[in-house]
């Protein structure tokens, strides 16, 4: 079995374990390359269907291309799309310049997700995070229990032995990370092989492209002439820059990602 097929097979195993375990399962979709690849694998796991809701945590600050991509694929893949926004915070003027970027991420992403889970009653969420994205994400488990107040206690995670994923009874909700073992290059090679739809923001225009996409005010494009997936792969195969270098929140202060994640950030 070739490498990418093995990666996919292991991810599908995790997806199917989650689907078996939880009757109220949903998936987070940011329309980025990772969660779109995850969505692709979900369709493969269930033979063309996506048998649970797909949640978009909408900060309202996303790029217009993200919304267009979302609406196109939601129709094409027949998704049960749920858009979750922290309307109270948005009405109060929350934004990346209101207090600081940490407060903004926490209000418009983490708290929007909290509200969505409470309202829709989900037990578990599938997310497209990967270990090689960030040193703190590298410490994640495939099945990660979260407490009632949403916190991730990274110092006392339950053991996870082989693929006998723990079923911790007292967790308020679980996060499941089927792509944990894949690298950024794995994802792009998978996208190329499978023909997974690609958000146009990743492709260079006028010498610039986004390597990691999120909210427009907090993402910086990189200098690039990669206008196709092949060219993106060639660029990454030669690059020495970390993937999230263009993300504002990672740079602002030491351990920001850890603080965000321990409060329930994705």
């Amino acid at each position, binding site marked *: 079995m070739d490498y990418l097929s093995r990666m*996919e097979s292991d991810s599908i195993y995790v997806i199917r374990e989650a689907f078996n375990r939880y009757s109220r399962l949903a998936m987070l979709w940011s329309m980025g390359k990772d969660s779109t690849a995850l969505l692709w694998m979900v369709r493969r796991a269930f*033979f063309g269907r996506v048998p649970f809701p797909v949640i978009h945590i909408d900060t309202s600050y996303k790029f217009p291309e993200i919304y267009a991509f979302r609406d196109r694929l939601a129709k094409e893949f027949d998704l049960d799309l749920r858009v979750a926004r922290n309307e109270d915070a948005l009405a109060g003027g929350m934004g990346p310049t209101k207090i600081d970027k940490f407060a903004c991420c926490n209000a418009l992403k983490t708290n929007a997700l909290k509200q969505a889970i409470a309202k829709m009653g989900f037990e578990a969420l599938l997310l497209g995070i990967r270990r090689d994205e960030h040193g703190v994400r590298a410490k994640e488990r495939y099945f990660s229990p979260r407490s009632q107040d949403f916190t991730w206690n990274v110092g006392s995670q339950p053991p996870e*032995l*082989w693929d006998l994923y723990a079923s911790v009874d007292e967790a308020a909700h679980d996060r499941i990370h089927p792509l944990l073992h894949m690298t950024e290059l794995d994802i792009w090679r998978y996208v190329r092989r499978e023909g997974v739809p690609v958000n146009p923001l990743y492709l260079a225009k006028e010498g610039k492209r986004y390597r990691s996409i999120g909210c427009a005010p907090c993402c910086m494009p990189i200098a690039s002439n990669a206008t196709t997936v092949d060219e993106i792969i060639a660029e990454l195969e030669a690059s020495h820059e970390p993937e999230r270098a263009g993300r504002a929140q990672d740079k602002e202060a030491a351990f920001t990602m850890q603080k965000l994640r321990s409060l329930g950030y994705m």
Partner: protein
Amino acid sequence: MGVSNRADEKPVLRIAMVGHVDHGKSTLIGRIRHELSALPGTSAVDPSIAGNWAYVVDQLQEEREREMTIDTTQTFLETPACRLVFIDVPGHQELIHNMITGATRADAAVLVLAADEGVRVQTRRHALLLSMLGIHTVIVAVNKMDLAERSEPAFRVLEEAILAELRAVGISSSATIPVVARDGDNVVTRSPTMPWFTGPSVMEALGEVEPASAVFDAVRLPVQDVYRHDVPTVVGRLLSGTIAEGDALTIFPSGGAATVTAIRRFPENHAAAEAGESVGLVLEGALPERGNVLAPASDPPRTAREFAGRVFWLASEPLAVGEELSLRCGTQSVAARIEEVSEKLDTATLDPLPPAQSLAIMELGTVRISAATPVVMEPFVRLPGLGRFVLERAGRPSGFGILP
């Protein structure tokens, strides 16, 4: 497609760094990452942590403040020849559950031993655990050789001691290498500071490791689920063997017979499936349920309600004879009762322990278990995926076992 095909063929090696507290596991990974950051596609190590190589993997605030690894981490490298996944694990015995979590993902290991301290409790315990987990490809890095004046006689004494420890748990090391991880001596390239050593660097030794190939080829498909949205489809990941349309399979433990009429895949079905593949089968005949194992009638798996395994206990509350908990093996989850504990071992010393009615944290013993329903298994050496199990208390993995 030439490039992608080549990338697809590169073997993957997952390497756990194990050993006692502060012997330099994280530092060795960090130093390797630093020295290989010139590799195409590898991001540079943050220059502000130069010298503190452990920070490459110790990225939690608590880890840096306390100068220790708390939870297991993985870091990825792609060389022109292969893919490497380095798995860091904590050395503290209080964090043994995190060490096991990391080690169960590994194919090979580097056992790190500090030259100034030599073999310590966790060196021995980690070596024992590697043996138990079936990780027999082990390289020894004798680190901090600067604290032993980079001297050959000091190295030979340590080499003899660690090889004896490894032999005691049934492991033969493929290389024992004197190293100064902090300075990069014998880490990626051979160091002129220890000219008496003519063996490989750590990376050279890892380059010699052959990925293990599966030898067991009878079909074993643990059933994950049956989807009934449209045509009933049995899903699971094929542990071993190959399946083709028309194959006759038996459902264990019930014994029902079924024939494979289609191997589903979206968007197009496949005619056959190979080991490692997450498959969807349409069957004619009996329909299995989650936990069942599909296998050929001519080469059946072992099925038993009562069996014994070697168990390592992870929870602070001991495992007691008479206790009822949940046993997980493959996709099976069954209620199980502990009938007997025998042949107990002190994993800090490898000395036998007196007979007792319980197994305490970090003790190893033979545990006889009776399950509420028959369990489908294989000896671990034959098929690891059906030869290992986890004991759960209230959904929390509290111990794991290996079937002889």
